[in-house]
């Protein structure tokens, strides 16, 4: 198995810690004068999403995690698994609710999402930062009201509920920031 020395740690590196795949966020080298050198590393556990700080003796090695990120097309949901496909190879992967998590609100058939594979199995699904989705249910629009800043809930085709301006109508397509769940604009 490949290993990395703490000297090679940089943001984005995938390593295995206590059996879990993790990504390095920040790596700070600390060395008191003539003393032992350490690396204080901020790490996100890719399974739990939790961010931790861990201290290593400088020069120590840790195992690399076999983690790859691949763009995949979302195919369908079968009631238990969400199915994805690599467009070039037609390879298919099934992800369960733990893996898909909150991304399920933004998955539209045919759209590309980034699927992170760990040892060949889906580990997490990251939707694109922006998605365009159709409104399937909302209160009737208030014409001309583009200035008051009032908002109302709207249900999207994926089932997600977002807050939209009052003038938006049922059947319209809107652009949403998936990182915040916020309405961005109307799509003509």
């Amino acid at each position, binding site marked *: 198995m490949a290993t990395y020395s703490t*000297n090679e740690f940089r943001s984005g590196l995938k390593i295995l810690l206590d059996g879990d795949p993790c990504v390095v966020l920040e790596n*700070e*080298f*600390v*060395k*008191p*004068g*003539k*003393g*032992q*050198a*350490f690396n*204080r590393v901020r790490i996100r556990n890719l399974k739990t999403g939790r961010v931790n*700080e*861990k*201290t*290593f*003796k*400088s*020069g*120590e090695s840790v195992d690399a995690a076999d983690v790859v990120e691949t763009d995949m097309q979302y195919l369908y949901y079968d009631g238990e698994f969400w199915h994805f496909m690599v467009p070039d190879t037609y390879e298919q992967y099934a992800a369960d609710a733990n893996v898909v998590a909150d991304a399920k609100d933004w998955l539209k058939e045919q759209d590309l999402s980034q699927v992170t594979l760990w040892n060949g199995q889906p580990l997490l699904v990251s939707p694109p930062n922006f998605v365009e989705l159709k409104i399937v249910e909302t209160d009737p629009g208030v014409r001309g009201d583009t200035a008051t800043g009032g908002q109302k809930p709207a249900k999207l085709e994926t089932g997600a509920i977002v807050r939209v301006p009052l003038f938006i109508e049922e059947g319209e397509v809107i652009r949403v920031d998936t990182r915040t769940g916020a309405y961005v604009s109307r799509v003509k």
Partner: protein
Amino acid sequence: MPTSPASSDTPGWRPAASLKTLRLRARLLAETRGFFAARGLLEVETPQLSAAAATDLHLESLAARSPGGELSGWLHTSPEFPMKRLLAAGSGDIWQLARVFRGAERGRRHNPEFSLLEWYRVGWNAATLMDEVESLLRVLAEGRVELAAAQRLSYREAFARHAGLDPFEAGAAELAGALTARGVALPPGLEDDLPACLDLALAVLVEPALDPSTPVFVYDFPVSHAALARIRPGEPPVAERFELFLGGMELANGFHELGDPAEQQARFEAELALRRTRGLVAPPMDRRMLAGLAAGLPDCAGVALGFDRLVMILAGASHIDEVLAFPWGDA
């Protein structure tokens, strides 16, 4: 008409530091030179390339070798050994700004090649030298950065205050407990390395707790951290060593210099033995420096100050690259 379109594989060539910072650096250097000239210290230059090297467990000397192998030596990690030979030869007070090299040290406050301002005062001790370090800081900070009055804190007080333990009494388990209580798990392999546990506690518990705008001198280190300092007998015995912290960084390290050649050689040998035990390179100890001590090193105190870090503080920089024209990776 010149036709040399920049291609995408043209390496970056521009300096990392701004020209404004480089001008500040040049002025600080001139003022430093003025400071020592006015006080009558002799400016000296000693070799960067030497047949011997530091034996410190945690200093990595870079080996230098000509392609055919006719010349093989080490780049110095500090100019301490040849400066002590000058002192033994009767040079009197001396100073220099040396470019030094330490392998595997790279980060926000580290570049493997850096500038060390090192000086020695004959007949002085740690306390008087701390006064002079503070004077230099005041001269250079004048009109640039507001500095609070310097504090002096023994190593023991610093740990009592900021780590809640006695560094002369605590074992690795107690240190591990104090670190864990602050969310720092002890890295593997440290359980039976008490000096390294103290280093970690100093770096993550004590140093961040010190006010960044106050120069803080920490003095009287445990004998495990004596390095090249004299040991003052007592209960417990302490190493007459000090470190200066400012701007959240360690800025200087000073000693009341060990002059006893037998003890110095014993320390070199102990460090080399530990290096071999740990599978580290064991470079040759500096026997010429030992010969100088045997001939007689005058009673003296010496200090090494990280000049790049001082420029960082006075330039308001948060990364060492901001004060270096071409840091490693760009050099």
